[in-house]
Structures are given as structure tokens and as C-alpha cells.
């Protein structure tokens, strides 16, 4: 059977293409946002429900796709929709590309109403006028549950949501770097739960090699985990990368302690340290290959998940500390913001207020391994029972610095992590790595 197109087949083909073209063109118009009616002050239909009625309003929420909590947030969004009459669609892109996608969409024709924004690009968005202020909504008593105001949030994360004194975002996804240790193994070896980093290293050295296990798993890849751990160690010594000017304030001694910690820890770490991200470190612990894990609290949730962990219930948690009575952490959080170009700001605020409040946050906390941004979250005893690391998180949060969020920081962070990697692999001495970190910080604070 040969392929010889004759006129009829040609026309048929062309007609087919035409239909296809028409279909392709019209079937994909972006979901229209706005529309509908808005009654922001309507009381909630059920207690603890969202304020306002927004029947017919359509909102688009921008976040990353996949873990954690997409399905929980979708459930919450569906619930909100039922209670208020509006609807929220999720526009989720892979996490690595979230900043770019949000930047392009907000700077271009728009299309997002609610945004999940990371601190590192929050300042840029606020400066560019892409976000709507929320302070006014928060102060409006008719839109909020009785007694709910800015004071209901933890002061440190809420302060991070301000730019030039105006509040643009509400915080959640509170997490930090913690130590998780196998209570049973430490007890067997007669070691007390580690109180300082030196204790951690000593315990790791002692447990390394026993029963085919490694002493300590921690992140070593250039994906941010290294920076989080190093930052925590700096905070524990009362030091930080830069001050508010911003001017570099990194001390050689503090940096040297951090680098030395990594170099020593590498000796008791599983192979593949330099390609391990935070979840790899947690997996090593969960599958019973490492006796201790230092990682971010969301990733440590894997230790509690029966589908991922064969060591559920065997873990104890502690904050990192250099001096025994000074626990420390790095404040990791995300901000919920409203797009300046949104046509449904009232509806958006209604969702944000309801979602960042304790009740909703409690529902997702267990799944995601993070804590909410409101004060009442930490006084809920039922939660503390379900989240074994919550006390450790609480302690860590007493002494924190927020994740660096200067515009030039990503490049600096990359260089800092490279320096640590080079120190671990022996390419650089500890002092040379510290020098590299100092010059990286200079790049980071420059404008």
C-alpha cells in the first residue's frame, strides 16, 4: 500500500487540521478570575469557618506541586469554597521553578490571586509592587474571628512578612533544623541524649559502625540543606551572616566551628554525603541506616511515616546547640500573599486568614511535619502529643534567625555550600573554606 495523496485525501487532511486548530485555540482559555459577588463581612456559616460570602468568585492559587500538603490544601480550599460560595483552583508548578513562574505571571498579564511566597523572593515582589497589603484586612474586626489580630501570630515570622513597614503576607510552614536520635540505640550504648554539637559528634563516632549503621546522617548536597545547618550553627554561637544594613558580620571563629563540624561529621556519615539532600538524610534514618539525623523538621516527618520508615516511634528530638543552655534554630517559613492585580482580594484574604489560623494548621501539621504561625498552635496539648518534635521545635524557636533573603544571596549560598563540600572532600582546608565563605558573603550583601 503506497502513500499517494490525491486531492480528496489532501482536502480531508486539511479539514482535519482546521478542526484541530480550532479546538486547540479555543479549548484552553485561562480560567477567568474574579466575577461573582463579594461580601467580606458576612459571618461564617459554621464556627471556625471562613468569614465572608463570595459566591461565584474564582481564584487561582499559586504554589509548588507535590509534597507537602497539596492534597490537604486542596481539601481546605474545597471546604472554603463550600462555606463561602467561591472556588479556588490550584496552579502548581515544580518547586524549583516556582519563583520564576510567579515572577513571570505577576510581571506579565497576571493570573494569580493567592501566592505562596518564599522569603527569599518576597522582598523582591513587595518592592516591585506585585503584592497587596494585608495589614488593613487584619485590623478589620468584621473580617476576623473575635480577638483575632496581628498579635495572634508569632511575632518573628509575622515581622518577616513586612516590607518597609507594610504587612504583605501571613506566615505558615514554620520549621527549623533539628537533631533526631535513636533513643533505643543511645540507651543501649549508655549515651545521654546529646545536649551540644560536641555531644552529637561524640555519640556519632561511638555508634558508627555498630550493627552496620552509620553514626549521623545530614544533608551535604548543594540544595540548601547545608546552608540551613551551617546557619543554625552560626546562630547557636550568636553569630549571623549579615546585619540589617546589610553588612557582612560573619565571624571566622563561628564559621570555622561550623565547617569543622561538617568535616568531622562526614566521618560518621553514610556514603554519598555530598549528594544527599534533606530527604536523603531523613531516609537514611528512617530505613535504619543511621543512628542520628540532622535535618529540617519537615523532612524528619518521614521518620514517623510507616510507609517510609521502619523505625517509627524510636526517635527522640533535640534542637542544635553549641553551648549547652542555648538551643538554636533557623527560622524557616513561607508567606501567604495576595497579588496586587487580583480582582478578588477580599475573597483571598478570607481564605488566608482562615487557613493560617490554628485549627486548619493543626490538620496539616501532622502530615507536613511543620508548625503553624499562630501562637495558640503551640499551646495546644493535643498537637504536642501528635508531633513529637514540637517541644524541640519550640525550644529552637527561642533563638533563631530567619533564612537569608537578600536578592544576591542565592549565588552566595551556592558558593558557601561549595566551600563546605570542598572542605569535606579535602580539597580545601577548614581555614581556606572559611575564607571562601567570607568572600561569598561579601558577594551576597553587595547590591
Amino acid at each position, binding site marked *: 500500500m503506497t502513500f499517494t495523496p490525491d486531492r480528496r485525501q489532501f482536502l480531508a487532511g486539511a479539514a482535519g487540521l482546521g478542526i484541530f486548530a480550532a479546538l486547540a485555540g479555543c479549548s484552553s482559555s485561562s480560567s477567568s478570575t474574579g466575577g461573582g459577588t463579594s461580601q467580606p463581612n458576612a459571618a461564617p456559616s459554621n464556627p471556625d469557618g471562613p468569614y465572608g460570602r463570595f459566591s461565584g468568585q474564582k481564584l487561582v492559587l499559586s504554589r509548588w506541586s507535590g509534597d507537602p500538603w497539596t492534597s490537604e490544601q486542596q481539601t481546605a480550599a474545597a471546604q472554603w469554597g463550600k462555606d463561602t460560595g467561591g472556588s479556588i483552583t490550584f496552579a502548581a508548578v515544580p518547586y*524549583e521553578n516556582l519563583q*520564576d513562574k510567579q*515572577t*513571570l505571571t505577576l*510581571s*506579565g498579564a497576571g493570573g494569580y490571586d493567592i501566592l505562596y511566597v518564599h522569603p527569599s523572593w518576597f522582598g*523582591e*515582589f513587595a518592592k*516591585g509592587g*506585585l503584592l497587596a497589603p494585608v495589614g488593613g484586612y487584619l485590623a478589620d474586626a468584621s473580617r476576623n474571628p473575635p480577638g483575632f489580630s496581628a498579635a495572634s501570630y508569632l511575632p518573628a515570622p509575622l515581622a518577616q512578612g513586612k516590607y518597609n513597614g507594610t504587612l504583605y503576607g501571613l506566615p505558615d510552614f514554620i520549621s527549623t533544623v533539628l537533631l533526631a536520635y535513636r533513643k533505643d540505640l543511645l540507651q543501649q550504648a549508655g549515651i545521654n541524649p546529646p545536649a551540644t554539637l560536641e555531644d552529637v559528634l561524640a555519640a556519632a563516632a561511638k555508634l558508627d559502625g555498630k550493627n552496620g549503621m552509620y553514626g549521623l546522617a545530614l544533608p*551535604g*548536597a*548543594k*540544595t540548601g540543606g547545608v546552608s540551613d545547618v551551617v546557619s543554625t550553627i552560626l546562630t547557636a554561637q550568636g553569630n549571623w551572616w549579615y546585619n540589617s544594613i546589610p553588612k557582612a558580620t560573619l565571624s571566622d571563629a563561628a564559621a570555622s566551628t561550623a565547617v569543622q563540624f561538617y568535616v568531622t561529621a562526614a566521618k560518621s556519615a*553514610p*556514603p*554519598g*554525603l*555530598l*549528594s*544527599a539532600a534533606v530527604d536523603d538524610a531523613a531516609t*537514611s534514618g528512617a530505613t535504619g*541506616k543511621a543512628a542520628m539525623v540532622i535535618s529540617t523538621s519537615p523532612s524528619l516527618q518521614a521518620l514517623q511515616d510507616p510507609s517510609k520508615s521502619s523505625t517509627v516511634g524510636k526517635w527522640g528530638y533535640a534542637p542544635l546547640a553549641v553551648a549547652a543552655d542555648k538551643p538554636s534554630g533557623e527560622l524557616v517559613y513561607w508567606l501567604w500573599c495576595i497579588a496586587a492585580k487580583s480582582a478578588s482580594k477580599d475573597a483571598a484574604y478570607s481564605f488566608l486568614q482562615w487557613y493560617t489560623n490554628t485549627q486548619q494548621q493543626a490538620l496539616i501539621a501532622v502530615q507536613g511535619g511543620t508548625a503553624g504561625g499562630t501562637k495558640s498552635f503551640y499551646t495546644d496539648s493535643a498537637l504536642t502529643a501528635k508531633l513529637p518534635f514540637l517541644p524541640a521545635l519550640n525550644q529552637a524557636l527561642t533563638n533563631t534567625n530567619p533564612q537569608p533573603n537578600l*536578592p*544576591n544571596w*542565592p*549565588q552566595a549560598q*551556592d558558593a558557601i*555550600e*561549595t566551600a563546605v*563540600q*570542598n572542605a569535606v*572532600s579535602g*580539597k580545601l582546608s577548614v581555614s581556606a573554606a572559611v575564607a571562601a565563605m567570607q568572600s561569598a558573603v561579601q558577594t551576597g550583601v553587595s547590591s
Partner: protein
Amino acid sequence: MSRVARHRPAAARRPGAGLGLAMLTPTAILLTALILVPVGYSAYLALYRWQLIDINGPKTFVGAANFTQLLHDATLRDALRNTVVYVVTCVTVELALGFAIAVALYDITKGRRLANSLILLPMIVTPVVTALLWRYLLDPQFGLVSQVLAVFGRPGIDWFGSTSLALPGLMLIDVWQWTPFVVLVLHAGMLAIPEERLEAAAVDGAGRVRRLRHIVVPALVPQILLVLLFRTMDTYRIFDTVYVLTKGGPGDSTTTVGLYAYQTGFSYLNMGYAMVLSLFILITISAISVFYLILLRRRGVLRR
């Protein structure tokens, strides 16, 4: 061939040319509007210092500052070195291996269709999954490779955490993923070789290897050239797998120019310099391609 065409009267040549230009017009429009204009615009944007957020707003003019930065960039030198190693190794291995497999495919009698389809699978798998898959396979603790080694009592090899093995690991993935492309193109080319020429040569007593050397390879030159050009272009700009697997690490051992350009623009938010880096990539690839074309044309094997 063109010899015949030249004997035609001049009047009859023009209709052919007209039709030819008409056939080329849609291509010209598409490519100019969506490639040449954007490249020109990028070159223009390279004169500014800006970030993605300034895309529709005002940008700071810096003239040639971005271009001069190119000359002092040490990371670029490292990236170039890594990229050259990557390109040369991958293209050579893929071409050699692809050719061998294409020949093997050609000479078997049964199961060719199934083999053809199965061979395409590495190209079909989503690149993100390919990267994750090989990270898993080469994982020093859980990967298949390490498990096999463990049977022999050797410890697991840490591929992507080691400065010396990370780049070879990436090259392994590239060969796995793209050799099927070479096989596909070369095999299709072999199928177009007229049977009779090979039969006649066989009858004349030429062995397989002689037939390969003197009939198959010369007939495949357009396809070989295409494979060389496109694989070089694509390996030179490699970015997906590096980004997912190592982000240029450990240290700087797997930073390639493609990754560096992307990171400069999208991670370090220096779009102006990223445009300059892209132009640099474009110019160097063009130079290499011109080199290929001249090399293969001078050997007289391209029919013109």
C-alpha cells in the same frame, strides 16, 4: 542531480525556484519570528543589567559591561572545560555505539520492529525521571549497581557525591538516553540504501566489513553529519539532568555552560549576563558546526 538541472533551459528553472521559495516561506516566517527575533532581542537585552522581575519594566543600561565580564569569568572557564569533556566523550561514544547497533539491527532477520521500538524507550522516558532513575540506580546505598557490587564484597561507589565520578555519571546517563536517537537516524538511513547495490557487492565477493566501509558508510554521511551536528549542539547545551542531579556540584565538577547560563539568569537573577553567556554558547556552537560542515565537505563525500 544538479548536472541534469544545468542542462535545462533557463526559463524552466525559474518555476522550480518559485515553488521552492514558496515551500520555504512558512519555515522562514516561523523561524524568524520565534528564533531570530528573540535572539536579537536577547542580544539587545545583554546591554542591560536586569532581573526576571524587570521583564516589562525599566532596566539599567550598562553597555558592554556584561560582555567584558565574560573575559574575566573563572567559573566560565571551568564550565567550558567540563562541557568540552562531556561533549567529546558523549558524541564519540553515542556515534560509535549507535552505529554498531544500527548495523546489528539491519542485519538481523526477525524481531526488528520490536527491537526498534524497545530501543526508543530511553528517549521516551521523561528527562526528570531519567535523572532520578539513574540517581537511584547509582546510589551508593540503595542502587542496583552498588547492590551488585556488594555481592562481590566491594563497597558502594558514590557517583554523584564524588568530584571525579559525577561528570562520568552524567555522561553515562547521556549515552543511555541518546544513543537510541543515533540508532533511529542511522538505521532509517540504512533502510533507504537500495538493496541491489549491497547484493551486487555480495555477489562480487565483498565481505560484510568491506560492504560497510564502501557502501553503507558513504551513503550514511548525511545522517552521520546530522547526528554529529545535533548531538554536539544538544550535549553542549546540556542542562536538564545536571540541574536535577547535581546542580553543578560537587564543588564545580559538573558545572556546564548551559547550566551556568541558566543559573546566572534564573537562580542568581542576573539576566543581562545570562544573555551574554547564551550568546557565547550560540557563537561557539556555530563555529563548531561550521567546522563539521567544512570537514565533511572537503572530504568530497557530501553530494552537492
